[in-house]
């Protein structure tokens, strides 16, 4: 079983996932170098599926590349570009190469990308895709055709705790958990109160025991990416006070680091949170400093010794 699957089974240890950089050309060695900053801290990393509706090397190819350089992949599967037949083929194809972790997303619309004229597919939606992956895991295609042996899959999903309808987001997360999601990577959230309410609702109803809740952290280096996310990434709202805090600081890069550190500390302080999903936009060796400040040891140490990070619950 995958390391992520084992951690989920054990039920009470810190989990760190990360967003792997996309691949646009180059060799495996180039890619290994790109992964080197974040990978040592992560239990598994996302092999993304045409992020923000931009074409890149495919999710399956990326997952296989990651395995070849010793990084455990989480195969992202979105609903935007492929119908249910192709989605099943991708999951089964990746499973053939030993990829077990699957993260099911609805996906950004084509209009979020650089080819907005493309046809959008959305044959399935996110919750349906989770259930579909669950069917594969149970040994059958959607058609009912048998798969023997069934692939060993560790199924997860995403949710945005910070956008509307706010009171409904935890219910939607619960729907995904009931459909078979065992981990939930959250969208980056710049409203701590919203993240708290979302996690508390899932925790109060026992859903955080069945599913690892992993809030996203985006390590930014200045106000630019904050402004970009606010204006250009659907579903992300960055309050003006957060942007000006970083923009107006004497040392923006350091202020941005402190913001990210506080976000991590806040997320990890919430009962029901199992770990973090990290994205590194700084690319300046800050990940080691961040993990050291949080008291998170590298994966290799967490693997070989007891994973003793004190979670809030």
């Amino acid at each position: 079983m995958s390391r992520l699957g084992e951690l989920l089974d054990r039920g009470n240890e810190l989990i760190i996932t990360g967003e792997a950089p996309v691949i646009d050309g180059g060799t495996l060695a180039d890619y290994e170098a790109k992964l080197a900053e974040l990978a040592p801290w992560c239990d598994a990393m996302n092999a993304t599926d045409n992020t923000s509706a931009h074409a890149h090397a495919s999710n399956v190819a990326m997952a296989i590349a990651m395995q070849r350089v010793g990084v455990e992949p989480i195969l992202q599967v979105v609903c935007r570009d492929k119908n249910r037949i192709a989605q099943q083929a991708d999951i089964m194809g990746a499973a053939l190469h030993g990829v077990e972790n699957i993260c099911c997303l609805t996906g950004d619309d084509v209009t979020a990308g650089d080819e907005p004229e493309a046809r959008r597919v959305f044959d399935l939606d996110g919750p349906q895709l989770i259930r579909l992956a669950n069917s594969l895991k149970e040994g059958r295609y959607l058609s009912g055709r048998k798969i023997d042996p069934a692939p060993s899959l560790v199924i997860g999903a995403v949710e945005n705790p910070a956008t509307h309808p706010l009171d409904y987001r935890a219910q939607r997360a619960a729907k995904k958990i009931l459909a078979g999601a065992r981990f939930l990577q959250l969208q980056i959230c710049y409203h701590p109160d919203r993240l708290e309410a979302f996690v508390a609702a899932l925790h109060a109803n026992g859903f955080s025991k069945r599913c690892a809740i992993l809030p996203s952290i985006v390590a930014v280096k200045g106000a630019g990416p904050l402004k970009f996310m606010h204006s250009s990434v659907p579903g992300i709202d960055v309050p003006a006070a957060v942007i000006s805090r970083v923009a107006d600081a004497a040392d923006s890069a350091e202020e941005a680091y402190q913001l990210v550190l506080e976000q991590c500390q806040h997320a990890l302080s919430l009962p029901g949170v199992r770990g973090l999903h990290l994205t590194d936009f700084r690319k300046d060796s800050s990940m080691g400093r961040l993990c050291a400040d949080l008291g998170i040891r590298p994966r290799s140490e967490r693997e070989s010794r007891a994973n003793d990070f004190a979670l809030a619950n």
Partner: protein
Amino acid sequence: MGLIATIEHVIKKPIWDCQMCGQCVLHDTGMTCPMTCPKTLRNGPCGGVREDGNCEVKPEMRCVWVKAEDRSRNLPLMPADWREHFNNLRPPVDNRLKGDSSWKNAISGRDKETPPGWTPETEAPAAEVEA
């Protein structure tokens, strides 16, 4: 399009902007047609809803699911089980039914047929989770 489908379309198009998917779930989605969502999502809003509650794809349009969620709670005269069904996991669309009368398919039960590999709902939906 047959006679029944034509009558259905004439009635439902002006009121709900019916897209004639042939497997109507309006009653479970706050009397709001999920097929008018640009992503045709049948199981709730995507993560791209804007801060003003409008659609990721069409910024001038209210998110279909923000509307649906509000109506499922607040629309008067709706039977209680219609409200409760809001959280159900609705199965994938059967694309063969597009253009058919959903009334006809509801009476025959055709609209309830799911692919053999689709796992049936084994647990109650999560209506009790409240933020």
